[in-house]
């Protein structure tokens, strides 16, 4: 049921290319042959019901999960693997760290480090990974925190912040590495409804800047608004994809029609 006619070729070189990606946990097959490409500046929204494999797919993209089979190119580099089945893992750890440093990730649970202030959270990776000086990292961190509207809270510890503030801080932490693409794993799913807007506003700004973003989300209105392409996953497969107007306005497949009916009965 793959909808080949709407597969858009990545603009300006692929940032992320996935071919025939499979992921299984024991006998549970979570991803069953995913082909996906995102070019520079693309904003791709991954939608689908819980258990459709969209978060697993996203986590495969920076190899927090190792695909069981299939090939993966990140920022133009093929990822070599070694071993088979559950033992399969990326063969080149150094390459992996280098590529991860250029791919930011924002998590559902924020995952700020509780023993550091917000500013220290943002400074940590640039200092430890990119070997920036403390002064440089601090200036950059302050600029980023101001950008996400948290400059007044830079000395606060994560535990004292609201979920929305933590998530904006986590976005600043990811941006501090100057990433070439950003992966968002349900960034607003753990937030109280009244805090969702502030996080989406930051993400909308990033999309407008022309950042490459892959977003796993349940926020359909947001996906329709910012995404260039919406990819609908169902039972570990891409059931349908295309520009948001098409996917939301005229879904081809029954699976997507059913899903959208479930999501927004209209």
């Amino acid at each position: 049921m793959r909808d080949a006619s709407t597969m858009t070729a990545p603009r300006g070189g692929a940032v992320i290319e996935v071919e025939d990606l499979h992921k299984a946990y024991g006998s549970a097959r979570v991803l069953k042959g995913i082909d996906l490409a995102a070019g520079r500046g693309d904003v791709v929204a991954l939608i689908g019901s819980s258990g459709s494999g969209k978060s697993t797919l996203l986590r495969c993209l920076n190899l927090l999960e190792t695909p069981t089979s299939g090939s993966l190119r990140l920022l133009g580099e093929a990822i070599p693997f070694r071993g088979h089945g559950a033992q399969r893992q990326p063969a080149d750890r150094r390459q992996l760290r280098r590529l991860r440093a250029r791919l930011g990730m924002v998590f559902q649970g924020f995952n700020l480090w509780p023993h550091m202030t917000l500013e220290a959270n943002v400074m940590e990776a640039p200092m430890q990974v990119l070997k920036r000086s403390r002064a440089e990292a601090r200036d950059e961190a302050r600029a980023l925190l101001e950008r996400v509207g948290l400059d007044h809270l830079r000395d606060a510890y994560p535990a004292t912040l609201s979920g929305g503030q933590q998530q904006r801080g986590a976005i600043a932490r990811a941006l501090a590495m100057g990433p070439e693409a950003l992966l968002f794993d349900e960034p607003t799913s753990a937030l109280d409804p009244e805090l969702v807007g502030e996080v989406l506003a930051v993400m909308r700004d990033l999309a407008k800047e022309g950042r490459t973003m892959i977003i796993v989300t349940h926020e359909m209105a947001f996906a329709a608004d910012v995404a260039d392409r919406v990819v609908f996953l169902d039972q570990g497969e891409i059931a349908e994809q295309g520009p948001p107007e098409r996917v939301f306005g005229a879904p081809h497949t029954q699976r997507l029609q059913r899903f959208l009916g479930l999501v927004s009965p209209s």
Partner: protein
Amino acid sequence: MADSRLPPHRLGLIAVALVIVTLMVVQMQWGWLPEYREAILDGLWLTVVLMVTTSVAGFLLAIPLGLVQVKGPRPLAWLARGFCTLIRGTPLLLQVWLLYYGLGSLFPYLPGVRQSWLWPYLIESWPYAFAALTLSFAGYEGEVMRGAFAGVPKGELEAARSLGMHPLTILRRIWLPRAVQRVLPTLNGELVIQLKATPLVATIAAVDTYAVFGRIRQETYMVYEPLLLMALIYLVLAGLITLAFAAMERAGSRGR
């Protein structure tokens, strides 16, 4: 302490303590004290040094012991678990004796040991006391650190990995500090227990506080006075440990 309020029951307890101390001073015999002052200070010094050095060395050993049980290759994890189980499952007194009388009596027969620079130390008792107390603390804290490492939320480590951090950087900057932060409250009690384990070294002729007071009792034929003073000394040491931890937790509580 930060809490300066003195509720009535505390005033009452303070009064009771004052009465007891006054009675101790007035009613009991303390004439032997000046004579043994030097010996007591020497014994106290050994107790404090043993407590501090074996806790530090033991904790440093406990970090890899805990880590390999969570993340290490399987043979190492088994080895570490076996060590912790062995240490925690046998009396410390037995461990002290095994090292001193067992290992200590083997050394002279090993070729070259008598000629080595180590020999002058190996015929003393404190290296065995140090080794036994260090291994014991490492065994207990290794188990505690295993739980602490495992208890750090996975997401915090994933966030570090997603930023391209090296595993050793993650350990040094995120995983270890977070694990230590989690064990701090229990470490207070463990250190007091370690303090109270030190008298066992008196059984291998190391002259710590306990050994000194044992000698005083034998030489003066007094029972209560030396024992009460010794109790007071250990109580004060335990109190100092607790105060230090209270200060540390106040300093670190911002992060939680």
